[in-house]
């Protein structure tokens, strides 16, 4: 008797149940906790679908980093609520919002129902590409990310930078160039400091390991970068380090390093290998690892900056 299909059904049911809880929870904090649990369950689903790379990303980014982001955002929302009493929207506005939401849901449902059978897939092409220039890498996922769809991968990092710029631009003009507010209370609890001191070195090591091993096994720059980002966040929460000034040159360099190195390599590919973003096959692996190292840096810098929020321009800056 094989129990696995039944376990899969239970898992799928759990995911849907937690998703419903997350949407319907009246309390913002409960909703965020539900979302984090949802992300972890989704990571299990990805593992069951034999996609450990996606599972790692989901656990680190979808659940971990986004969870911190949402908790921080929820706190700020809660603070806002006390300042301005919420104004009840008009009935027509409510109706319109509801209709619009229903329309989007219908459109999404129709798009899924109208998928041609068999659905169009780029997988065969990607599989060929994974055997191409990136074949020096043992991990086909990294080969596809860095060789078949390198342009998308680079643009993803640019989106991250744009998001950071968006967060920074929310700050007041006066605060521009200053540092974001510290993540936690003036005096952090001792267990928090202990956790940060022990976990951060280990986490950094594991993050670099996941990046390095990404060439041959599940892992890669995004997963490793998310771990490094989490370690930076935890040290900021324990007040072992403070959020940096946003006009610090090293921070801005770290943010743009990934896409910049990627782009320079793409241009070099145009000259050396005859195609934008092409790599000479014999050098593909070192070049890809070189680019990924800088992307790791950019991701590790961008995610904590998203969590830290806009600069506040405190007197001590």
């Amino acid at each position, binding site marked *: 008797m094989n129990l696995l299909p039944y376990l899969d059904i239970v898992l799928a049911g759990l995911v849907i149940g937690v998703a419903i809880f997350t949407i319907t929870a009246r309390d913002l904090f409960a909703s965020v906790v539900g979302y984090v649990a949802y992300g972890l369950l989704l990571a299990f689903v990805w593992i069951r679908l034999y996609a450990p790379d996606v599972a790692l990303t989901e656990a680190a980014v979808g659940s971990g980093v986004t969870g911190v982001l949402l908790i921080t955002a929820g706190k700020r929302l809660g603070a806002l609520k006390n300042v301005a009493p919420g104004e009840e929207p008009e009935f027509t506005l409510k109706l319109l919002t509801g209709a619009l939401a229903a329309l989007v849901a219908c459109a999404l449902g129709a798009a899924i129902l109208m998928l041609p059978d068999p659905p169009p897939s780029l997988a065969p092409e990607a599989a060929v590409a994974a055997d191409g220039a990136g074949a020096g890498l043992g991990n086909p996922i990294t080969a596809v990310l860095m060789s078949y769809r390198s342009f998308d991968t680079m643009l993803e990092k640019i989106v991250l930078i744009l998001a950071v710029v968006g967060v920074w631009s929310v700050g007041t003009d006066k605060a521009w160039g200053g540092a974001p507010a510290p993540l936690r209370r003036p005096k952090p609890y001792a*267990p928090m400091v202990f956790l940060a001191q022990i976990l951060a070195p*280990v986490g950094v090591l594991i993050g670099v390991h996941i990046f390095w091993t990404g060439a041959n096994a599940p892992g890669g720059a995004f997963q490793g970068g998310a771990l490094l980002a989490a370690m930076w966040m935890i040290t900021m929460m324990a007040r072992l380090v403070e959020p940096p000034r946003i006009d610090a040159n090293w921070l801005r360099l770290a943010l743009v390093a990934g896409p910049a190195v990627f782009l320079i390599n793409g241009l070099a590919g145009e000259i050396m290998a005859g195609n934008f973003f092409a790599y000479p096959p014999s050098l593909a692996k070192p070049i890809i690892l070189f680019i990924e190292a800088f992307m790791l840096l950019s991701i590790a810098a961008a995610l904590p900056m998203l969590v830290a929020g806009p600069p506040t321009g405190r007197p001590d800056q």
Partner: protein
Amino acid sequence: MTTLLDLFSIVAISAGTFFIFAGTVGLLRFPDSLTRLHALTKADNLGLGLVILGLIPRADSGLSALRLIIIWALVLLSSASTSQLIGRALRRDRK
């Protein structure tokens, strides 16, 4: 020898599952947050330790066995510290 090792795995993992189950029952049944926290962290740490102990003979190499132990140590560290943090937050709210 393999039968013995299999038996060891089965016993250890079953015992681990029992402790995790007991911890979950405690989480659901205990009256207040502090006792629930106690049930969850203590029982789960022991349960996970036993599961990992049962998995070690089944690891492909010494390195993966070491990784399993590191995972356990990391979970111990994080659950011990976060339970302290949650406990302290509870005490602060109660005052």
